């Protein structure tokens, strides 16, 4: 098992190097000089310019720059943001908990609704519930989530005043030092009255927006997987034994039907990150997605480069983890590979 895992891990190493190479080349291809961004419009003396170039390592030959870049990354150094002069790594991991919180909430929302809905639809195949759910799931799957977010802000936040429009918490009413970076936990720890409720209110709309596409996918997957399982022999046996329908469906069928669904949930980290970029932008949610878009706007290329690297690395590692875990649950995969 361990060897299997290490083998898979070793296979990701060339991917990481290729990724470094591509992000490095990509940023070099950008028209314009990164020093200009740092210096601004006014311009400075040639000596200062040379000093800046030396600081950024731009006076070195390109291959040396690449080696330095790789060496830095291997030591956890992704360079400094051109705008804030803060380490890219530090900025990323300060903001990352906000993205995790949002993504986790969205996935919970999608799973808690999607799995039971899909299972019921499969059991009551062809019913009105089934048809409605499948119709909704096509709509959810096709949803431009940036529009869905604006629509919900318009209806729920602006018209009905049920939730706030943006942000993670009302900063005028509540302030506390971040401990974990997760707003819900920090709000609880802060002991401030109403802070948790306020943070929860802020989370609801972004959670729904980011969770919509996964919800549609999970409901559909659960339904089709459940339909397959329901026609299996062991389900028929369980029924023939005289077990109650609830027991047959809940215990025998659903548990087996969930294996592919769980895999899909695990492997959707990538699309979740992509969705987070849009959702965070709409709701001014201070996570890495919004930060990435802002980095482009400010032409902060080290931040963009490091951000893309880090997001991809996380997605690759999570996917690897899911693959390995799947091998643990399902030995057929492990031995086949």
């Amino acid at each position, binding site marked *: 098992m361990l060897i299997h895992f290490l083998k898979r891990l070793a296979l990701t190493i060339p991917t990481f190097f290729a990724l470094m190479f591509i992000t490095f080349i990509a940023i070099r291809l*950008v028209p314009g000089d990164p020093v200009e961004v740092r210096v601004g419009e006014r311009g400075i003396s040639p000596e200062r310019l040379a000093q800046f170039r030396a600081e950024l390592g731009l006076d070195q030959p390109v291959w040396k720059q690449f080696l330095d870049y790789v060496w830095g990354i291997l030591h956890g150094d992704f360079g400094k943001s051109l705008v804030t002069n803060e380490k890219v790594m530090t900025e990323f991991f300060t903001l990352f908990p906000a993205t995790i919180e949002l993504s986790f909430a969205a996935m919970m929302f999608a799973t808690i609704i999607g799995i039971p809905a899909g299972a019921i639809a499969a059991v009551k195949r062809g019913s009105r519930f089934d048809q409605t759910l499948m119709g909704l799931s096509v709509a959810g799957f*096709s949803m*431009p989530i940036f529009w869905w977010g*604006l629509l919900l802000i*318009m209806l729920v936040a602006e018209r009905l005043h049920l939730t706030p429009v943006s942000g993670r918490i009302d900063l005028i009413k509540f302030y506390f030092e971040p401990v974990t970076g997760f707003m819900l936990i920090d709000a609880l720890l802060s002991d401030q009255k109403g802070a948790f409720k306020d943070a929860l209110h802020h989370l609801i709309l972004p959670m729904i927006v980011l969770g919509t596409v996964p919800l549609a996918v999970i409901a559909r997957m659960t*339904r089709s997987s459940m339909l397959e399982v329901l026609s299996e022999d062991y389900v028929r046996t369980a029924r023939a034994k005289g077990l109650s329908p609830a027991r047959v469906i809940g215990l025998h069928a659903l548990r087996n039907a969930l294996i592919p669904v769980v895999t899909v949930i695990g492997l959707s980290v990538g699309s979740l990150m992509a969705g987070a970029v849009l959702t965070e932008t709409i709701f001014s949610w201070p996570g890495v997605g919004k930060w*990435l*878009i802002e980095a482009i706007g400010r032409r902060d290329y080290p931040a963009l480069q490091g951000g893309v690297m880090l*997001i*991809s690395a996380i997605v690759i590692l999570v996917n690897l983890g899911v693959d390995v875990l799947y091998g643990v649950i399902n030995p057929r995969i492990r031995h086949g590979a």
Partner: protein
Amino acid sequence: MAHDASLSPNGVPEVEHPLRQLWASFSENKGAVFGLFILCGVAFLAIFADFLAPHGPLEQFRDAVRAPPVWEEGGSWRFILGTDGLGRDMLSRLMYGARVSLFIGLVVMAVSFVVGVLLGLVAAFSSPMVDTIISRSMDLIMAVPGLVLAILIVAVLGPSLTNTVVAVTVVFLPRYVRLVRASAMAELSKDYVIAAKVIGVKKLRLMFSTVLPNCLAPLIVQSALGVSEAILEAAALGFLGLGAQPPVPEWGAMLADAREFIRSDPWIVTLPGLAILITVISINLMGDGLRDALDPKMRRS
């Protein structure tokens, strides 16, 4: 499934009216027919926008800025769906927007189809070295979340309609390559391919006229669904300000412009998104029907 296309006179497998057969099973699915119908409507509006649109997409009516649609109070038939923040007719912009979105979807589909088939077949037919290089490159592209990769590409090339197409194509290319490679590999070990090799069919002919036709069914389904995904992705880029640039009437970019009117003029926000949603749903419904019709094995519900 394994028709030997290279033996039939004109490269078409000799089955009774394959298209009619396809239509028969396609039309069983009511949702798919509905999707096709709506899609034809959208395509009609897009193609004939020059004749159908009541105004030019860029024409600004300074006397009617943010005019409400006809069913709201103060609306008029002059601007059926109202006007936007610069007094441009929404209906006309949406029609021209359909042209932009469908264009993006189709170009992305066509390019990734052609390049995907080429790379996929080369990977399947060449030495393990070439196969590894192609497959690993595709894995690499797939390792980066789609939208993030597209953002990186656009950030490097600069935001424009053309670069949107390039970015979205790169993002979706690996799916085609993998699909073609996998189905070609599966076909390669079948008897009819071995037979063709034994007769001495040349490699190119083997690739394109013996094996390829038998890989087409899943590829067509992927292409249909790929159009809708490309439209969504391009609209997302447009919304982030990294796609088509103003004043191009692209639906995503229109939404980005509309954000400031969320409080005052809901139609400016609602309509472009509704256009995206309707188009994407109709393509997805059609794609589902196509999948069921083309390959009963892939039927999953």
